[in-house]
């Protein structure tokens, strides 16, 4: 009974952390960008206000859409909520973990994307169809790199569970300044930017450009649905940050408070870093995005080769 209770508490804790903190990341990124542009920028709480506003609004549905269109925001959010249980948040171990859960993680990400693409196609608009096609193409490439990274990490840690892969086994490698991990981090960062539609790949702030990818797919969503999608993308960003931070700073001091502080600080630093990248880089032309993702893949592949070669 108490076991079940404990489980329930950890579930709730994870949801609480990600639910409460993830929208703030958007706020941090926006502030950093504003700082670089010499502006004051919106409040850090602005994303929360946006979400609150959207949740109070009613949804408008086009008459051509079917249930798929309505299901997709729910699926997206649900997928993120499940995923958040499988990713360790610094000291908080993932409540759900089993050997091979890495595949589930990857395919849950794919499931969310699948529904997004279907919903975009469901609207019947050629504009959104175009976005869907781009999303499908780029995610093909980024998923390849993601899997390569996961394989390398699982070889390094000799396990197939995400919590173990990015957990305690990595400090051993870092001590020798392992170049493999450098490659993994580099590759994963590019994947992070691509998967979360950040700047060199996609610009989340524009709505009227022919080159945008993610935003074009959610143009027809409104009200609560749009809120769900926004919330889900914030959570996705938080999850990727969490994974990357666990790879880069796998510090375990033993003090729960210090560990948590380091973890949250790391996530914050990541957000600042993404903000800086967005400020100093322009978005790439669409055909160059492909190259960027291929480089991410090549990096991951390279790290895999080095790891295999060593064994």
């Amino acid at each position: 009974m108490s076991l079940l209770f404990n489980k329930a508490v950890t579930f709730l804790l994870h949801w609480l952390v990600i639910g409460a903190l993830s929208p703030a990341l958007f706020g941090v990124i926006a502030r950093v960008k504003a700082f670089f542009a010499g502006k004051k920028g919106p409040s850090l709480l602005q994303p929360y206000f946006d979400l609150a506003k959207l949740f109070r609004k009613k949804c408008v549905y086009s008459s051509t859409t079917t249930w798929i269109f309505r299901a997709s925001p729910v699926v997206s959010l649900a997928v993120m909520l499940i995923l958040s249980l499988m990713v360790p948040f610094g000291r908080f171990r993932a409540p759900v973990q089993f050997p091979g859960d890495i595949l589930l993680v990857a395919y849950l990400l794919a499931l969310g994307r699948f529904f997004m693409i279907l919903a975009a196609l469901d609207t019947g608009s050629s504009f959104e169809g175009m976005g869907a096609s781009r999303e499908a193409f780029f995610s093909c490439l980024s998923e390849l790199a993601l899997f390569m990274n996961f394989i390398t990490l699982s070889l390094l840690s000799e396990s197939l569970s995400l919590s173990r892969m990015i957990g305690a086994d990595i400090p051993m490698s870092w001590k020798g300044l392992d170049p493999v991990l450098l490659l993994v981090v580099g590759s994963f960062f590019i994947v992070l930017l691509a998967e979360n539609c950040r700047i060199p790949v996609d610009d989340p702030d524009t709505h009227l450009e022919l080159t945008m990818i993610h935003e074009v797919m959610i143009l027809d969503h409104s009200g609560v649905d749009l809120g769900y999608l926004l919330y889900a993308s914030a959570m996705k960003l938080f999850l990727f940050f969490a994974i990357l931070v666990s790879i880069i700073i796998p510090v375990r001091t033993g003090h729960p408070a210090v560990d948590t502080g380091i973890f949250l600080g790391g996530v914050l630093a990541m957000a600042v870093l993404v903000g800086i990248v967005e400020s100093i880089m322009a978005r790439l032309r669409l055909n160059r995005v492909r190259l960027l993702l291929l480089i991410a893949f090549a990096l991951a592949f390279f790290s895999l080769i080095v790891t295999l070669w060593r064994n």
Partner: protein
Amino acid sequence: MTPWIDVICILAVFLSLTLLATHRIVGMIKIFAVQSFFLGLVPLFLHGGIIAGRDLAVSLVTMVLKAGLVPAVLFWELRHISMRSEVRPILGLGASILCGAVLIAVAFWISLAMKLPGKLESSLVLPCSLATILLGFMTMVTRTRAVTQVLGYMVIENGIFLFALSLFDTMPVPIEMGILLDIFVAVFVMAIVLNHINEEFERTRSTGRRPRWGES
């Protein structure tokens, strides 16, 4: 100090790969300069961090020649040749990256069969130098501009240099310097020939006779 050499080896291969994915010659030259700079650091990490005079000398000469003068000569060349500065790849950039990844795998696979008799500073030196050489060859073969071919040649040289550093004690310093100087002079001579080619090209273009490259 092995980890630093490992990191430099990996960086060298990675930079050769990005060289393949770059579509402007200026960018390629810059990447090459960065690569040479990192390679120039290698002698400093060789003997467990104890920097002897000869290490410093080789490191300095490498940096000055390869990361400084060679790129300078190539930039001078680019300014003097009235060519557009975009590479014309035979193979698309994306396909080049994938082929490059395969070549890296091949290099590592080959190096598995090659057992080094002596103790090397870092185990990654051999596969990484092989990979750099192969990538240099690929740059040379798949990029049709003359300057990019020179760059490919220089990347091959960088790969060989990376390998040579692990045998530092066998080569006396004057010969090591001779090799470096030779390579620089090679680039210099190539640049001069290119300049002549360009002058001739301009002249024949104005008179209307315009032989194609490769026609003889």
